[in-house]
């Protein structure tokens, strides 16, 4: 949940930071925010943490949000060498460097946002589309288990929230299957292939389903995602509500299997009698 004081403090801090840069009196560690082992050990690794009172752009350099002054120098815990120090050209540049992602210029969150963030607030963030898979692929044997599984994983999407740059993390929490034969299931696990479960084909799995009648069926999967958001290095915060995303449907045919005698191994002689 965004609160009044964070965006206000942040905005003030950024303004102050920019003002100090213009005056040529404020320097922070490298805007690349890259962190080598040495700079991490000596405490000069930079991060972008938003505190209640200050924007911290480094382990030992703080820019107060309001009513304060920037501390002089850049202490490094007794280290007698200087970490690479360059002025920050812009906060936006630093944000993009930090993220190492396709650059969305950093913009401060609007200061008048209040209340919890709901799923409708993040409507512009679209999660990756899930997909459904089945074994065997697009056919089933009546009475035997067909292994259905979802392809969906937690992932992060960049975008804008309340006018500010933000990230939303989508995590699949439920997998809603409609098997097309009048039965449905809501599962908490995605499932996986028979091979990865180290069981034989047609063995039942936690996500398998058996058909009782031959026919052609359309199987649909809808994945329910929970969402969290973060702005400029804050911790992840919950988004109220969930989002359902449908996967492209599968169409498959169920039939009875007939046992036949074959002359040879059908793998080695696919055109042999009975194959």
């Amino acid at each position, binding site marked *: 949940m965004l609160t009044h004081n964070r965006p206000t403090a942040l905005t003030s801090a950024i303004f102050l930071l920019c003002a100090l840069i213009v005056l040529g009196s404020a320097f922070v560690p490298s805007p690349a925010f890259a962190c080598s*082992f040495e700079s991490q*050990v*000596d405490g000069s690794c930079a991060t972008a943490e938003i505190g209640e009172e200050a924007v911290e752009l480094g*382990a030992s350099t703080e820019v107060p949000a309001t009513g304060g002054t920037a501390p002089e120098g850049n202490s490094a815990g007794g*280290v007698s060498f200087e970490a690479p120090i360059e002025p920050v050209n812009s906060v936006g540049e630093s944000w993009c460097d930090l993220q190492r992602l396709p650059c969305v210029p950093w913009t401060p969150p609007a200061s008048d946002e209040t209340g919890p963030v709901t799923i409708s607030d993040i409507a512009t963030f679209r999660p990756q589309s899930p997909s459904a898979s089945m074994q065997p*692929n697009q056919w089933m044997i009546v009475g035997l288990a067909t292994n259905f599984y979802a392809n969906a994983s937690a992932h992060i999407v960049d975008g804008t929230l309340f006018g500010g740059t933000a990230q939303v993390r989508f995590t699949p929490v439920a997998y809603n299957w409609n098997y097309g034969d009048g039965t449905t299931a809501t599962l908490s696990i995605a499932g996986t292939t028979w091979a990865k479960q180290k069981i034989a084909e047609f063995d039942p799995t936690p996500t398998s*389903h058996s058909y009782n009648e031959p026919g052609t069926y359309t199987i649909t999967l809808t994945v329910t995602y929970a969402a969290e958001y973060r702005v400029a290095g804050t911790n992840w915060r919950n988004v109220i509500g969930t989002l359902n995303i449908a996967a492209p449907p599968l169409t498959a045919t169920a039939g009875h299997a007939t046992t036949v005698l074959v002359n040879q191994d059908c793998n080695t002689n696919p055109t042999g009698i009975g194959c």
Partner: protein
Amino acid sequence: MRLPNLVHAAGGALLLALLSGCAPSDASTPPEPSSTFVAPYATDEEALAAAEEAYAEYVRVMRESYRPDASDPSALYTVASGGHLMELLSEFEDRVADGRYLLGTQSFDQIVLQRYSRDSSSSEMIAVYLCDDLSGLSIYRDGEKIAPDEPIPPTTMQVVFDFNPDSKSLLVSARDLWSSETC
């Protein structure tokens, strides 16, 4: 969903054996993305395992470059890329000229996948979070420890990897402090 009896199970097994020669092979393989870029790892798990292995190699090479007698930074080219490599090379020159080096132990764990971009490009293909414990490392010059005053706590890092299609290896293209909280 269990089979009703052993006979049925045996029949199913026989049926499977017979059908296996006639059914399309590897029918469950998902379709490949229609892009010129071919993702080298089939699953997130494979990508994460490759990233973990690549980061372990990155740590090994980095530690070699921090030895007191290190003078050749060329091995860094095999584990890092882009701007991050340039930063490491620049830092190496500066460090060697100043006579600094690192001694101690280092480890990492809790590696989790942030993203694996299968259908974009080899640049920044994988990003992971991991907990890097550098608390056992110290910076020295001329046999004298100069930093840190107190051991730094383990912290969460975001590590981004490029894929080198020539060497078919992952190269660290960014290593950033993700959270200053102890992990």
